[in-house]
């Protein structure tokens, strides 16, 4: 008989006891897998939304622009930084020669006052080149179409409601140029829609064409506040960024990746990670406390056995090791079952796009697809087994330490 066989016989012989410990590790494995996949999916979807709607994979901006957070705007309009025509031409030449990016988009970001016949509201506009397609993947239109021509705008539902306008209406737009002059323009509403996944962060940006936004900011033709690009391969982002940064040395152009965008949207994504880890820690803590109690009860039931083993010459560490081996086998088995069941559920649900009702859709978007990532799931087994063994260690050692005569006297 081997130690593992002895442990297995003890487990199978006392299957009710084993089941009480096993059920907790099963549930821990199951819920952790479901939760980690849910949070991972939400985070990945949100990151995709940030990249497609806002930051691009790589962004070229004027050196010194305080735009880590694209929403932030400190100082006066005169201080607004922008890329000159020469800088953009230089960057475009390098991009053309050295990098085969999927999409490059010049943008102008500006704060304006949108005015309708009945109302007005302030907001941010994002002027993009009409050929841009990435934003279309995450901006869901409830009416109309995407930007195709100059002097067009897509409003969010909130803006359209506030301004009481619909597709086809013409809006007045008032802004201050970078030189400090007031300027107005007229934009036709061609679409109404929003980036669902960023609603949670109050992302309320009106998309317009590059030319209109440039005029409102007082930029000359060929100038822009930034250029974003998409490599089409997330693995290449860092490499391309390094290459671009090297090539643009001395051009006063800052090259950043979407991960460096910062701001409260990225802060929100970090918060999701913190939420996950907090949930995990709390779940493991609760399970740990429950397991300590259950294991202590089991060891109380088995005091006679411990006493017998001590009497016939088993040392306390040998007994502790035997019990920990039992717990390790039990935890690994049930944890695998839990992780397997959780993975099965996630894979099953991940086969279809789920229509999610409010308020959960603030996290998930209206349509949500669960993503299963085995690299993130596998450590769950190690974490649960480790925590279970850690919490079992103290009661097991305490039980094994008792003098055999005390245990034998209890029986007799």
């Amino acid at each position: 008989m081997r130690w593992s066989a002895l442990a297995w016989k003890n487990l199978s012989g006392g299957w009710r006891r084993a089941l009480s410990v096993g059920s907790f590790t099963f549930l821990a494995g199951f819920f952790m897998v479901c939760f980690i996949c849910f949070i991972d999916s939400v985070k990945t979807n949100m990151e995709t939304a940030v990249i497609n709607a806002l930051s691009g994979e790589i962004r070229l901006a004027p050196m010194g622009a305080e735009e880590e957070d694209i929403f932030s705007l400190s100082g006066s309009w005169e201080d607004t930084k922008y890329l000159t025509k020469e800088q953009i031409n230089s960057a475009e030449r390098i991009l053309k020669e050295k990098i085969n990016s999927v999409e490059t988009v010049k943008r102008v970001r500006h704060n304006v006052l949108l005015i309708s016949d009945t109302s007005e509201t302030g907001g941010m506009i994002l002027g993009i080149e009409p050929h841009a397609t990435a934003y279309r993947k995450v901006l869901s239109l409830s009416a109309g179409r995407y930007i195709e021509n100059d002097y067009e705008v897509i409003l969010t539902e909130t803006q359209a409601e506030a301004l009481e306008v619909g597709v086809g209406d013409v809006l007045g737009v008032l802004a201050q140029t970078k030189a400090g002059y007031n300027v107005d323009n007229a934009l036709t509403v061609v679409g109404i829609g929003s980036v669902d996944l960023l609603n949670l962060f109050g992302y309320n940006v009106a998309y317009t064409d590059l030319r209109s936004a440039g005029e409102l900011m007082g930029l000359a033709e060929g100038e822009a506040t930034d250029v974003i690009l998409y490599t089409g391969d997330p693995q290449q982002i860092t490499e391309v960024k390094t290459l671009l940064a090297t090539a643009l040395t001395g051009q006063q152009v800052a090259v950043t990746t979407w991960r460096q965008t910062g701001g409260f949207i990225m802060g929100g994504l970090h918060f999701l990670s913190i939420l996950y880890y907090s949930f995990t820690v709390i779940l493991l803590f609760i399970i740990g406390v429950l397991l300590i109690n259950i294991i202590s009860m089991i060891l109380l039931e088995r005091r006679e056995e411990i006493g017998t083993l001590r009497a016939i010459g088993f040392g306390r560490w040998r007994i502790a090791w035997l019990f920990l081996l039992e717990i390790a086998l039990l935890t690994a088995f049930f944890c695998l079952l839990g992780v397997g069941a959780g993975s099965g559920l996630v894979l099953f649900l991940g086969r279809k796009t789920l229509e999610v009702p409010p308020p959960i859709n603030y996290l998930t978007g209206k349509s949500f697809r669960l993503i299963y990532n085995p690299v993130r799931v596998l450590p769950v087994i190690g974490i649960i087994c480790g925590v279970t063994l850690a919490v079992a260690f103290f009661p097991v050692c305490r039980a094994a330490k008792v003098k055999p005569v005390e245990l034998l006297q209890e029986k007799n």
Partner: protein
Amino acid sequence: MDIVDLQRVTKDYELGQTKVHALRGIDLQIKEGEFISIAGASGSGKSTLLNLIGGLDSPTSGVIKINGTSINNLSEGELNRLRLQTIGFIFQSFNLIPVLNVYENIELPLLIMKAVSPQERKERINHFIAAVGLSGQVKQKPYELSGGQRQRVAVARALVTKPRIVLADEPTANLDSKTGLEIIDLMHHINRLEGTTFIFSTHDAKIMQRADRVILLEDGTIKPDNSERNEERR
């Protein structure tokens, strides 16, 4: 040389505010190969005496020597080794592991005896299974056995490490009188065959008559009036 030598051994327990004198200055010498009964009424100190000899408990005062070596100051590890290699235990309630079968219960102490090879382990187990007459019940679990059979397994488990002393605390208390006598006779048979020293406690007159020597305990002291009858037994 005496295999067990107790010199002025006392053992006191604290029970709340009360101090209980379980053993009061016991002097006892046991030679190797003896078959000894420790008799006395309930509470006379029989189990305490056996626990002290077995190193399961420590005396309040006095010296306990096993095979010439004092065990009073042995470390926990040394006591474990002593119990594993020199002393075998048989309990009143058999104390078998319920999930293990007859073979595995007997094998249990050998799991931690590194010096015994797998082949020798197998031979020893089968030898003692045959010696206690359980060759037909090797695969059975304790709950499938009668009380007598369970105690036979316990006897085999105590002997499988080839100890020099076997301590049995009321080994017949949970058995009917016929089965009890059978167990004692089995132990006596092994005592003669293997030369193992057996020390068992009992308060049953029929059982103690089977012993070569009876140590009568009363209120924690040995009654000196049974030496003549012990000589007759020898």
